[in-house]
């Protein structure tokens, strides 16, 4: 794909903020015709730069009062244990995110729970019983901010 220009960056920023805006609305904002705006958005999608759409819900208002980040170290390593661990951990509904990392830990998990008691239940019954799990460090999320990034 050819290099992106300022208008593409503007479109990406606008869609990351609100992906329900129509090509007509975005076109007016960036001085493009509706078809021209539509073609640019299509191009960003085809190139995989826009991977998809994501629903933004307020977890607290839905009763998920606690978000915890866990750093997990595996006790046993090797291809088989990684596969077993990954399969089991990604299947837990309360685990929203699993990232394989290099550094102090092997995996970074994001876990939602209704409250601390519910989190303790998830931790004891679901996380600590995962195959191969070793040290776990927990940090409770207090605030979070997503930034637009380098566009």
């Amino acid at each position, binding site marked *: 794909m050819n290099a992106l220009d300022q208008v593409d960056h503007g479109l990406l920023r606008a869609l990351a903020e609100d992906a329900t805006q129509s090509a007509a609305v975005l076109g007016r904002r960036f001085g493009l015709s509706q078809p021209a705006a539509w073609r640019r958005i299509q191009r960003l999608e085809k190139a995989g730069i826009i991977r998809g759409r994501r629903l933004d819900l307020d977890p607290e208002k839905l009763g998920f009062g606690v978000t915890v980040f866990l750093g997990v170290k595996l006790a046993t390593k090797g291809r088989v244990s990684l596969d077993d661990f990954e399969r089991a951990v990604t299947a837990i509904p309360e685990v929203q995110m699993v990232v394989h990392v290099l550094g102090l830990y092997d995996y970074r998990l994001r876990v939602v729970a209704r409250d601390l008691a519910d989190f303790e239940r998830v931790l004891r019954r679901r996380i600590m019983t995962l195959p191969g799990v070793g040290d776990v460090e927990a940090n409770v999320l207090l605030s979070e*901010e997503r*930034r*637009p990034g380098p566009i």
Partner: protein
Amino acid sequence: MLDGLDRRLLRHMQDDPTLSVPELADRAGMTAARAARRLEKLRESGILRGVRADIDWRALGYEVEVSLRFTLDKTQRNAFDEFIAAAREVPEVIEIQTFLGKVDVRLNVLARDMAHYQHLYRSRILTLPHISDIESLMDVARLKSQDRLPI
């Protein structure tokens, strides 16, 4: 408070945020008018915050993503506020989170490659105020992403 139908709507929307209201209504087993009214209420109450485009930074040439965990010097008043305000000025910072636990603040930082990361780390990260300790974890692979809530 949410009832079963609201939850059903949100579950289907989570599965595919690009669905039109009539398609969504069809899947959730209600009329389009009823679905539209419920969605409006979910928006008004702030539960449904919006639909956002998900940007693939790799496709934009950002090959490296690092999770930086900071301990701040809490003897300094305003350490958190000043650190966060300075972090917001770095375009490559895409997430800012504060925690209760061993880690005070976590930043997710993008870079084009390791050389670019090294440059950012020295010129933009180490220069942030009130740092007492830093740990870095490099993302290898995302096995599950943080979109879904177990509604």
